[in-house]
């Protein structure tokens, strides 16, 4: 039953995604925006800080192109239900909300990865030195761990902002803050020492560290602690998201307030 619910919510999510596609939105928005954003955040540090900072930002943006999209879009699925008036129906349906929620981010991840692939194809040739196949495989593993956290964070934002209209705003701005706080473009060393421990445990921070490490000669053994830490952060975010969602569900059923938002 759970597998069927996950599959049906995945299919639903897929249908919404496909219905949104036109040649214009694919080329002009879904593909071009992440690429232009990544190019901007590579070119600026490259010119302001030289080739070393440029390479640093290049690696960071190869990773973050997918993460940004995942945080924003995964937080939007519940918003779309809310806007189309179907969330109260989902809430009262006998089927569990949790497996339905789990199915939705799959499509998001596919979209994030496709945006990331295009960005990688354009930006990766500038990597110096260009990594071999084994390092690329390791980098993909780190990226997947980061995507797990990003999707969990998106769901957490979605659940936390369920009774307000702030979801899209919060996810968008938090994604930018994540870019700054995890040191995608500029090393976090520019920030005060007292906030460094907080920055180190932000979602996707460990995965980004692993991504950088594997591209800079790190071994699989070096990656393991960072990836485990990232998966722990992802699990924490997901647990918090599901808890918040269940609590909101309970409160909203009691007060019948979802249709007001």
């Amino acid at each position: 039953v759970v597998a069927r619910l996950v599959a049906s919510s995945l299919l639903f999510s897929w249908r919404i995604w496909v219905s949104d596609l036109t040649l214009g939105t694919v080329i002009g928005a879904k593909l071009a925006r992440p690429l232009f954003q990544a190019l901007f955040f590579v070119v600026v540090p490259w010119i302001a800080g030289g080739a070393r900072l440029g390479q640093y930002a290049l690696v960071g943006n190869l990773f973050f192109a997918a993460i940004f999209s995942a945080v924003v879009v995964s937080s939007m699925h519940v918003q779309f239900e809310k806007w189309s008036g179907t969330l109260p129906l989902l809430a009262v349906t006998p089927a569990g909300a949790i497996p339905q929620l789990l199915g939705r981010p799959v499509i998001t991840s596919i979209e994030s990865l496709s945006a990331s692939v295009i960005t990688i194809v354009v930006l990766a040739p500038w990597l110096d030195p260009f990594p071999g196949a084994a390092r690329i495989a390791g980098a993909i593993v780190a990226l997947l761990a980061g995507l797990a956290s990003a999707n969990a964070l998106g769901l957490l934002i979605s659940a936390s902002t369920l009774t307000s209209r702030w979801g899209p705003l919060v996810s968008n701005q938090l994604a930018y803050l994540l870019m700054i706080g995890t040191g995608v473009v500029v090393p976090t060393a520019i920030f005060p020492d007292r906030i460094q421990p907080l920055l180190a445990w932000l979602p996707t921070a460990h995965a980004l560290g692993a991504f950088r490490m594997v591209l800079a000669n790190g071994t699989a053994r070096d990656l393991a602690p960072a990836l485990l830490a990232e998966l722990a952060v992802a699990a924490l975010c997901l647990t918090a998201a599901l808890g918040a969602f269940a609590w909101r569900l309970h409160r909203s059923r009691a007060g019948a307030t979802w249709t007001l938002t």
Partner: protein
Amino acid sequence: MRRAARTAVAAFVAELRHRRGSSFYITATFLQPVIVSIVTVGACVWAGNREMVPFAAVGAGFIGIWNAALWGSGTIIDEERRAGTLPLLLAAPADLRLVLLGKSLADASPSVLALPLSFATASLIGADVAVRQPVAFALAVVATLLSTAVLGVALSAAFVLSRTGSEYVPVVNYPIFLLAGLAVPVAVLPAPVRFLSSVLSVRWGNEAATSAVASATFTAWTPYLLMFALTVVYTLLAATLHEIVERRARWEGSLGQW
């Protein structure tokens, strides 16, 4: 003339009231300059490139102004269309261009705060920025604001006919930040595209304001004169484009469809 001013002012006030309740607009206007400033100024600080800090901090602020004007031009038309008021605005005796100018100015005006926000952020990451010529700086900011608002009106003509036009605004933003020399000096751009940056008044505003921050003596009127000339061109462009678009929209009578 008085009637025209009254129309623009009424639209300005209505739009300000509307935006006051928009959490997205408020956060985007005031948080984005902080983020961009951390990236541009932070890159200079990290690399020890201190002489580029004034350029980076001013550029981050001007990105905020450009963002607000361009974003506004897209969303004003979209929101009117969604609310069903666009055909009414077009059919009203008051000139739609004046309404859009008032609204565009209202969207762009609060973005002036992007500059002090950018300077404050720079200061927090260890790079103090001081304005050495306050009058020249204020003149550059006000001129840029007016010019980008008029350009926003010109661009909004495209959004009257296209329902998806505003989706492309965030996409073209990043190339324009680079092209206009807001994030990197125009001198590093390839020669063929430098001409394109010359037709963006925000480039000249940024140059004038950076000069007012970096130098204690007034050096040139050229950026101000170029901004004035470009604003005249944008005004003519906005008037012509809207006339063409409005004539077509009235002829087709399809603005009310969504």
